[in-house]
């Protein structure tokens, strides 16, 4: 099996799907000749032509808005927003338009649109770029939200996203883009939405995360293992649909849970996980469910980001607290 990093896995999925389905069109800033600022679309324009891999003018709202129209006309657009933080420039076209077209047209216009964007800090990119704002999109309930954390999922979930009959916001973990290769099947496969991945199993505590925070939890779990604490790590993969079953079952068995995410604490999606778990696993809980998140401030200067982002150390500390509760 070939080995790929996340960038390569994404490029592989795009290549596969553009070959299979000629309705697929890639559009966004610098996706053509340059191959995207992270090279995820490298070589695609040469291969599929300028009509199918399009460098758009610098305007996020019309990237999303025109993708809506392209889908209505019969195409299958994969739009790239250069950094998730800049979806704010397109916010009115995201939830309210892209997310609602099927509903407001009473089914006449389903929109098979994928919006790709990298998210997250830890690479010293300037403010706005790294903003982890996934929860804002959950509050617009007609977008599916997928966040792979590894090369295998990146490929399989992107193929799933493009083929999904509904709009999918596909958020990529920028910090992990080139963080090592893993085995990824060369052939076509999809990873279904709404099915969490159990990255590691342990009986003492459940760690729930998505995107790059999964890797933080895995490092925390390793540290905990050296202290004799066995942690389960669950990678949600998609926030919408949410795999309640897997997390509830795990917490029923461990009795303790820490949710970890890169977004600031307040009103982050972690709150939703806690609310859901305490409702459905209430009688199994041995301690309150905890959250480890970034602090409630704007994204800090590059030199301070490592203190702001959730770290394995903070997760470990929090688990120790729960175990002594």
């Amino acid at each position, binding site marked *: 099996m070939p080995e790929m990093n996340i960038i390569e896995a994404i490029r592989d999925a795009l290549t596969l799907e553009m070959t299979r389905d000629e309705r697929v069109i890639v559009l966004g800033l610098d996706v053509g000749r340059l191959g995207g600022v992270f090279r995820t679309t490298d070589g695609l324009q040469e291969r599929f032509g300028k009509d199918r891999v399009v460098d758009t003018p610098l305007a996020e709202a019309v990237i999303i*808005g025109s993708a809506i129209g392209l889908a209505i006309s019969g195409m299958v657009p994969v739009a790239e927003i250069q950094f998730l933080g800049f979806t704010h420039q397109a916010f009115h076209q995201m939830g309210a338009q892209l997310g609602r077209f099927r509903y407001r047209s009473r089914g006449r216009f389903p929109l098979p649109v994928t919006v790709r964007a990298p998210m997250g800090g830890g690479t010293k990119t300037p403010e706005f770029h790294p903003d982890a704002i996934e929860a804002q999109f959950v509050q617009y309930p007609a977008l599916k939200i997928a966040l792979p954390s590894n090369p295998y999922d990146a490929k399989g979930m992107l193929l799933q996203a493009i083929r999904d009959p509904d709009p999918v916001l596909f958020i990529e973990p920028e910090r992990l883009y080139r963080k090592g290769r893993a085995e990824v099947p060369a052939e076509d496969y999809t990873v279904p939405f709404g099915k969490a991945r159990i990255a590691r199993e342990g009986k003492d505590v459940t760690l729930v995360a998505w995107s790059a925070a999964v890797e933080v939890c895995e490092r925390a779990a390793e540290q905990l293992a050296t202290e004799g604490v066995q942690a389960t790590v669950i990678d949600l993969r998609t926030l919408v649909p949410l795999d309640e079953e897997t997390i509830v079952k795990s917490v029923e068995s461990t009795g303790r849970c820490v949710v970890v995410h890169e977004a600031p604490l307040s009103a982050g999606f972690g709150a939703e996980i806690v609310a859901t778990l305490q409702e459905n696993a209430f009688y199994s809980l041995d301690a309150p469910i905890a959250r480890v998140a970034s602090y409630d401030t704007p994204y800090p200067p590059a030199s301070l980001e490592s203190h702001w982002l959730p770290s394995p150390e903070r997760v470990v500390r929090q688990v120790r607290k729960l175990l002594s509760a």
Partner: protein
Amino acid sequence: MFQLLDPAGRLRNGAKPPLDDEFVLEGLRWMLLSRAIDARATALQRQGRLGVFSPVLGQEAAVVGSALALDPSRDWLVPQYRELPAMLMHGYPLHKHLLNLMGNPVEGRIPDDVLMLPTQVALAAQLPHAVGIAWGLKLQGKDGVVMTYFGEGASSEGDFHEACNLAGVVKAPVVFFLQNNNWAISTPRQLQSGAASLADRAAGYGMPGVQVDGNDLLAVNQVSREAVARARAGEGPSLIEAITYRMSFHNTTDNPSKYQDPAELEAARARDPIARVQAYLKGRGMWDEKREQEFEQAISEEIDAAVAKAQKAPVPNRSQIFDNVFAELTPRQAAQRRELLGEG
């Protein structure tokens, strides 16, 4: 400002009508239908039988003249919300529109063979959609054109700029039809932009822009045909600014006496687009009182039938809240639906 008919309905020196008389008569019929619907819908709203309603009154020539340039079998219509006659001309049934206004969009679904988007509530958000459709048609080698409507108010939104600019780059076959009716709710045109002409904006996107007398059916039709032909020939987008006037309230919740100078409204009434076409056709022996009565009778019956049909449509039921959110409900949505239906 391009004009073919003067306000008295006389062809301007040397002007040649772009439409033959039968076609103008057809246009007039749509204009009269539109005005009759305005009256009926307003009455129904006052009786509490319809929700908020925005009349077309005063803008009939702009809407009908432009829509007459389209071929509903291949062209797309992307409306804002004040273009009802264009929607009907494109094949959308009137009773469905009434159902939308009654808060029953379930039954208002656009038929599969009508190439039209739903009306847009978020101003100017439809413009990028129109560009995307046009671009997609072009990429697929289809010869359809997209006509999209918006007000001079909406033209201040960023979406207008981004949409026009992208259209210029990809040479999308789209016509941006700006209805400048002098008002965005209570905000007058002169507070909306410092530009002398909004059509001047076209140059900044590399497309032709034209200002036309929006109360002149023939002139509107001519510039619209030219823009549609241009788009169809692969030459890209155009911007048309139709200068017209909103002769009624913004919508049924609005009271223009709070902000409108009555003299201005009087002056606008003197430029009534319907009277102008009637005068023109009268001059050509195509219009008289008898014909007017026949038209009015037929229109009234058409509206009666639509109202009756709308009233007979099934009332929406609460389970429909969960229809068409996604192709398939998520487990969480499915559970919520069960709760709503008391099955939970």
